[in-house]
């Protein structure tokens, strides 16, 4: 009786595991995995580029740090799907370009 019960439980467990795998399916593609706002690269991107309007108020060190953060983020964006890579590489280049431009302007002022 006990053996039958254990066998039944094992069988049900096996069915549950197999059913679960089918229900979950294959891992989702990078496009559908998570909403963009939830991804780490996106949070970093938003944080870097949200400061562009105040670029003129930053010190040279702060600007250099932002440029470095852009450079660290670029390879992560390179790995995204074609569409997001096209959109966000372009946007990141704009932010980086602005910070580099303002940094150069500040360096020139000091000369």
């Amino acid at each position, binding site marked *: 009786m006990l053996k039958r019960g254990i066998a039944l439980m094992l069988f049900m467990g096996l069915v549950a595991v197999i059913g679960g795998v089918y229900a979950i399916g294959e891992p989702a593609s990078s*496009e559908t995995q998570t909403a*963009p*706002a939830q991804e780490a690269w996106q949070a970093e991107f*938003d944080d870097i*580029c*949200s*400061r*562009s*309007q*105040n*670029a*003129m*108020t930053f010190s040279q060190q702060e600007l250099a740090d932002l440029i470095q953060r852009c450079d660290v983020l670029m390879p992560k964006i390179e790995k995204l*799907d*074609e*569409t*997001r890579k*096209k*959109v*966000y590489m*372009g*946007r990141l280049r*704009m*932010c980086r*370009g*602005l910070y*580099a*431009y*303002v940094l*150069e*302007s500040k360096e*020139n002022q000091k000369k």
Partner: protein
Amino acid sequence: MNRKLLFVLALVLIFCSHSLSQTGTKQRRPLPYEFGRVVLNNYSEKADLSPVVFEHWIHRSKFTCRVCHVDIGFAMKAGQTGIKAADNERGYYCGACHNGKMIADGKPVFAACSNRRLSYGDQKQCDRCHSLGKKVASDFDFFAFSEPLPKERFGNGIDWEKSEAIGLIKPAAFLDGFSIPKHFLAAQKDFELNSKVEGMPDIIFSHKKHTVWNGCELCHPEIFMGVRKGNSRYTMVDISEGKSCGVCHVTVAFPLTDCQRCHTKSVQP
């Protein structure tokens, strides 16, 4: 003697043909409803579709330049973005708004067409944008739209800046999912650009006017790369060829024919 004359005549002919090829033919000035129109044909005809006709006037009344050209990522030159139907389907570029979900003027914004096999209904959907050479009904009539707005002499015939100032248009500066909440915009001071032509009033460049609609990174450093004031030389020839100010002020923003809009400073006696 005859040979010499022929040689001189040939030289004159070569010189004239070269000069004519430099100047080209005079272009027709676009009508108010055509001004700012962009035709996109990166992939359309390859996919047996008409090229896309994009009207700036209706879009600029709804959003600032920055939303589309920075936050969504449209390039500043026609055709350089390389938009594909798949991009729109994924909800980027045109698909950022044209997704059948966004509500504007109380109704959903029509969805961009997709890569999937087209039925007759889909074809009509595609024609809304892939409309070059077709008579396609639009939700917006330029004349009805522009009628209450303050007038200007050139371009769309609309004073866009004044239209916004008096609240007749309210271009949104933020698009959910694309725009990043930003801190307040510390606009740089206006500055003067000296005219190189005697008697021509100097230019007062308003940073404020430009940063409100464009932000900073749309212009610097891509369009204006000179860092130190006075180091970059801007000529009307370059501008009319679409460089510096001409990136916008030839095709979309008020055109170069409207001299007094930029050359605003009084001439010194």
